[in-house]
């Protein structure tokens, strides 16, 4: 297992290294002629008004929130899924209960209108 993890680590480094080195090479090959207008932010030819980092709506945050909760359930459900063939029907029902408690949260968000895109 240690070897598998070592390979994964090496692979991740290389997967980031190859694009990185390609960008460096392209930067060396390409011309470099910066100009103030060229470097300005692109907003369809109109000059930027106000701060760039304006506020955005909380809607996005709510999707991320529901996602977080469903992501955390993986910690519990994946080990259960591995043990699926080795456990009895009661363990399966427990996991189904687990899923349905979480689905209750989704139902609440639905009823509350939090899933509606406004």
């Amino acid at each position, binding site marked *: 297992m240690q070897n598998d993890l070592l390979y994964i680590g090496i692979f991740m480094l290389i997967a*980031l290294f190859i694009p990185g080195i390609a960008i460096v090479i392209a930067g060396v090959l390409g011309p470099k002629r910066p100009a103030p207008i060229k470097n300005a932010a692109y907003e369809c030819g109109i000059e930027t008004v106000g701060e760039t980092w*304006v506020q955005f709506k909380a809607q996005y945050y709510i*999707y991320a929130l529901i996602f977080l909760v469903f992501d955390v359930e993986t910690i519990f459900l994946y080990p259960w899924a591995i043990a699926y063939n080795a456990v009895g029907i009661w363990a399966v029902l427990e996991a189904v209960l687990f899923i349905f408690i979480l689905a209750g949260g989704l139902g609440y968000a639905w009823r509350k209108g939090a899933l509606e895109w406004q």
Partner: protein
Amino acid sequence: MNSFLTDPIGFLILWFYSVLRGWNLPEDLVVLIAFVVGAFTLATLSLLLVVFLIWVERKIGGRVQDRLGPNRVGPFGLIQPVADMLKIFTKEFITPDGADKVAYNLGPILAVGAVIMIWAVVPFGITLYGSNLNVGILYIIAVGGIGTLGIIMAGWGSNNKFALLGAFRAVAQLLSYEVPMVVSLLIPVMFAGSMGLNEIVRAQTVPFIVLAPIAALIFFISSIAENGRAPFDLLEAESEIVAGFNVEYSGLKFGFFFVGDFLHAFTIALLFSVLFLGGWNGPGADSMPILGFVYLMIKTSLMYFLGLLIRFTLPRFRIDQMLALNWKLLVPLSLVTVSLTAIVDKLAMNNIWVRVIVLLLVNLIIWLSLQEIMERVYRSRPPRRTVNYPRLKPEADEPVVQPETPAA
């Protein structure tokens, strides 16, 4: 020599190990060198594959839409992507003023690196895999999260409203569709009793798509959405938010987002074949590993072609439709499917054919009740509000005004 014919790649790997050992290096160093060389080869091959994939995609896309596709450079336009690559390598990088340099430059690297990283755990054949990680499926999900991070860094780093808005949209979509994907991937893990992709392939004496067609469908849809392709290409909706999170990029940095996109399209086909179509399983694959590789490639090409057909025929969703499809249909459906499959499969006898029939029945029931529910929801909806646009046709009692004909 026989071993070379049935399993050329495995033979080469063993030969490489024996060469390294011949140099009297310590064993740890041999393993390390072999790993670095292997990882480097695989990653490079995956990137080189993109050059070919771009040609395939443009050619098929052209044919689907009744065009010719690339046909000028080389036979059938085969050299076109090479020419494009040379061009993009020599283009200028324009870094916008006020960009956050680190985030701006890391964005494309993470976006393409995250796709390549998936390849580390894919089993291409019985003997041919990078790593038999025991948590392979979770690794794939985790790597998807790194890609999301790359997009948010790109959007934030470019110091542009459109880019940031695009990144927000993109991240909302990627996060949302990860939920049904994670839930539906529980089913292969459940059946195989392991998260290692090798074990999952080995467990598929009957491909899992037969046992769990709905889960396979959910996985397919959500991975298309993760890829951000039509009909889910809201992340780069040119007509709505100029180009999305990548407006401010140029040259190869811009190109890398698309390299990642093309490679991801192939990778999801590969993953789908591994997880649901039986991977390298097939007649004679046990004795001749190279046959397994061929089977896997055939399955992958089929799924890839299907993905291309979808991409080139369907129009784009609106953002509210995209989110509603996920949260109001796919997520509940995946939860119900997983629960029912788990219960029924536990109750079914261990005979494989009984399981197939029972699970197919369950999936059919889920599908039919889904149709019924959607029908009812559709009927119970209030009729669409009609907007009174200015009429083009005049009312009956209005005098008809003839448009003036310009003087000749």
